[in-house]
């Protein structure tokens, strides 16, 4: 059933966030430490465990993949609720600090990615897709895009 997938996702989410809060409390930090990342690891592990035992049915997978597909719409909604006014009207310090750090990060990303490309640490580039391909084709149990 589809709800099993969504419930699994929700359980991983809650467990991950809780662990993130626990780590934060342990080291005395006022923000969640990697909760979402830990939740992602839980989901990967749980899915792997269930798949190996043949318990991860197509319907169950749909309960997870639906939310993965909803990701871009959620991001668009998030963009529409940003405080863009503050960003536009903030003084030169905010704009220069932000633009400067972004520029430096881009340079480093470019540098590191060129190095790992040459050292063959990086995988081959993903095959191109058309942006408006049918998302329903992604709703398989083990999506293999490559």
């Amino acid at each position, binding site marked *: 059933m589809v709800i099993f997938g969504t419930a699994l*996702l929700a359980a991983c989410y809650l467990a991950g966030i809780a662990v993130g809060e626990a780590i934060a409390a342990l080291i005395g930090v006022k923000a969640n*430490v990697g909760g*979402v990342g830990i939740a992602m690891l839980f989901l990967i592990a749980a899915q792997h465990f269930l798949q190996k035992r043949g318990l991860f049915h197509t319907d169950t997978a749909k309960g997870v993949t*639906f939310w993965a597909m909803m990701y*871009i719409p959620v991001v668009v909604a998030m963009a529409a609720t940003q405080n863009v006014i503050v960003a536009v009207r903030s003084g*030169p310090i905010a704009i220069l600090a932000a633009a400067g750090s*972004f520029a430096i990060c881009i340079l480093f990303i470019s540098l590191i990615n060129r190095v790992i490309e040459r050292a063959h640490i990086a995988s081959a580039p993903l095959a191109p897709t058309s942006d408006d391909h049918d998302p329903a084709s992604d709703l398989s149990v083990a999506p293999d895009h490559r």
Partner: protein
Amino acid sequence: MFALIEKTIHESPLVTAFAFVGAVIWISNQLGHHLTRGRIAGSAIAVLAGLALAYAGGVVTGKSKGLADISLFGGLALMGGAMMRDFTIVATASEVHVDEAKKAGWLGFVALVLGTILPFVVGVGVAFAFGQRDPVTLTTIGAGAVTYIVGPVTGAAIGASSDVIALSIATGVVKAILVMIFTPVFARFMRLNNPQAAMVFGGLAGTVSGVSAGLAATDRRLVPYGALVATFHTGFGCLLGPSLLFLAVKALFG
């Protein structure tokens, strides 16, 4: 008639948000397809459109939550809030290929460290160039350049004033928006076309909102890899900001 429609919309904010975002994405896809002949991804246009709408909403209401401050679009705050964002990010992990992620685990960590220290140094440097000399102010603005959550958390921890905290939040928000807009533009330059590169990007570019939106607009399949690393970014920054980085600034300028 009009009152009837308005009542319906007011009573179903989240469903209205679904319909509205769907319409925005459909229009963006059409624009991307026909006006730019598919050269600019529909999702990139949709994120830009979202930001433009947020600006319009801010101008109309004078408040801080973009379009969501207009009551008709209140559902956007729930749909685009941290809970839904994180829930859908976790869901994208279902598409992670474990071997790909394992290959770059250590790289992700290196990127995370660089992604915290480099923006911090730039932020402190810019604030210094504008005549700031107080270590608390310098640290808070530097932390804001990491992410807009690290800024206020750090500032509150070391006792910065509220206008400095506001400035650090603004720095982080500007950075997140720059990442959202310019990631697809610089994707080729950054060699952002494979899972490992996306993990490096997630660690260095930082802010979850910026990384996730930027990658979504570049190639949806890269999102989980970038997000996996980026979600550690804020926690890592909040850990280093009020401690190691503050002490370093204090030693240098204090």
